[in-house]
């Protein structure tokens, strides 16, 4: 543990002269109230890119995060898609994991106890292949300890039966979310599909169904082809596009959704730096989630957090509420 970069910056921070006489602006308030949930700061982890927290605990003090959104959970274990499951694209990647996961019971027995040790909000991302399965998972999570909220994935592009089939049909979205709403008292966050023409209609359907917040965006449906073999790059043929390549689409959708409903939003899609996160906050997100960036830098969440704090100090912003939704769009 010699002079690593991290050690140095930690020391530097403690002795920074500007941290001594802490005025509001020198130590801006990053805490937020998201749908009644107290978050230390607005930086969360995007589902499926941070495992169940444990995989990254070596690099990130989970206590420092606003919250952890875990990999998607279903009623029964899911084997996932055959490989190849990933393909890199310009500043992005396609994935067709197929929602591989150990199922809700194993999650609650083996993964949740670890997360409970930390003082951070835990959001459980979940999905099903039928309305009954969604309800089943929600019921099981309802009784469990240490869960701050449920993120309902109605938008996975990589499973044929459930997922996106619900999230791209307005009526199915409303019915599904209404049923899940009845199954739990936990705060419900609907994770919307970007693979729709008008995201605001789905945002309103989620609000009407009684959801407490929105997450957007999930991955964009994409495809890549090996032109020499004339085969798709992914065994599943199509996959979900994520990473910096999708950020402008994500910012646009967050902005549209924020203008059409009053629900708080977790914005995500290609966030790598604090400035990237600021775009989402200005567009109207109350929190952000860091996804694919975790793969290229396991400390990405903390770098984004530092970036937000630095930006607020530089711009003399004392409270996050001064920024959220404050893009000047004329």
């Amino acid at each position, binding site marked *: *543990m*010699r002079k*690593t*970069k*991290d*050690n140095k910056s*930690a020391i530097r921070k403690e002795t920074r002269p500007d941290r001594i006489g802490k005025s509001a602006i020198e130590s801006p308030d990053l805490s937020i109230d998201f749908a009644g949930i107290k978050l230390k700061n607005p930086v969360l982890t995007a589902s*499926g*890119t*941070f*495992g169940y927290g444990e*995989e*990254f605990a*070596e*690099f*990130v*003090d989970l206590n420092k995060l606003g919250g952890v959104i875990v*990999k998607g959970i279903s009623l029964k274990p899911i*084997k*996932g898609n*055959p*490989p*190849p*499951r*990933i*393909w*890199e694209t*310009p*500043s*992005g*990647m396609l*994935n067709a*994991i197929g929602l*591989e996961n150990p199922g809700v019971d194993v999650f609650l027995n083996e993964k949740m106890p670890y997360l409970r040790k930390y003082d951070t909000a835990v959001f459980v991302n979940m999905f099903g292949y039928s309305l009954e399965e969604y309800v089943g998972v929600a019921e099981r999570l309802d009784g469990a300890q240490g869960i701050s909220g449920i993120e309902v994935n109605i938008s996975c592009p990589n499973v044929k039966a459930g997922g996106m089939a619900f999230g791209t049909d307005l009526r199915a979205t409303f019915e599904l979310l209404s049923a899940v709403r009845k199954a739990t008292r936990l705060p419900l966050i609907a994770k919307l599909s970007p693979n729709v023409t008008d995201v605001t209609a789905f945002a309103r359907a989620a609000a009407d169904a009684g959801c407490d917040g929105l997450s957007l965006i999930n991955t964009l449906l994409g495809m890549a082809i*090996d032109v020499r*073999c004339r*085969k798709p790059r992914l*065994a599943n043929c199509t996959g979900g596009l994520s*990473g*910096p390549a999708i950020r402008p689409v994500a910012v646009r959708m967050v902005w549209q959704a924020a203008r059409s409903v009053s629900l708080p939003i977790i914005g995500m899609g290609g966030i*790598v730096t604090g400035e990237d996160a600021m775009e989402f906050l200005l567009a109207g997100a109350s929190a952000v989630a860091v996804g*694919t960036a*975790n*793969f*290229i*830098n*396991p*400390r990405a969440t903390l770098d984004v957090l530092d970036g937000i704090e630095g930006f607020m100090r530089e711009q003399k912003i004392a409270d996050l509420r001064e920024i959220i939704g404050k893009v000047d769009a004329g």
Partner: protein
Amino acid sequence: MPSNRLHRALIVSHKPVGRGYYRLVLKAPEAARSALPGQFVMLRVSDTLDPLLARPFGISAVISRSSLEILYRVVGKGTTMLTTAKAGQSLSLLGPLGKGFPRPEKKTVPVLVAGGSGFPPLHFLAQRAGSRTHLFLGARNKECLPPADIVRSFKELADKVHIATDDGSAGQQGTSTDILDAFLTKTERREHLVLYACGPHAMLAAVSKIAAEHAIPCYVSMEERMACGLGACMGCSVPMKAGGYKRACKEGPVFDSREIDWSEQVLLKLKR
């Protein structure tokens, strides 16, 4: 909690070594100290966002206890960009990652089988495995073999290096698995032999079959596409005989060959 697996690694030297390969030596003392043969690193070829993902590379040697050696073949966008990195610069490096080869026991006679660009992790194993080692190298032709310096290094480390090329331009004519099979058939005392293989999936499937026929333990290193290297993305799945998948980056890249569902593995490759 700064992790000791995430490094800014200084490039100590970086040179082409022939046959399309580069030798990259990176100073990363903590990684070098704990690295085991068969483990790998995730290396970012630049700090820009395109290419986005880090590239996985096996560790081919530990040098003077503070540096890692990587031998890589230029095959695409990332490795082409990597060739421009200069000594004195530093790169983001994550590792060592994954589970390496089980350590050969005192009596073990390690039999290493390398195909394509699968030899780097076996070179590290040869460094640590002792002089009883046999190495089998196979390639389409002489130009597709590992660089001459590496072959020489293998010859110094191992008891014997067996070479086969499809066209007979170097060593015997045939595949590495042909000459491996012949070697095992004529070896009388097989109880201490252990196979360690790395290369294309079809070759690994063939080695695994030969190992089963001769009832010899066999460990294979599976090179899958990877995004995180940390067990989080579930991108690097290897099909298991018992059903389901395991992650090459976490439970692997080295697996007992009997665990793997070769039929699905080979079927998938044929489909592609």
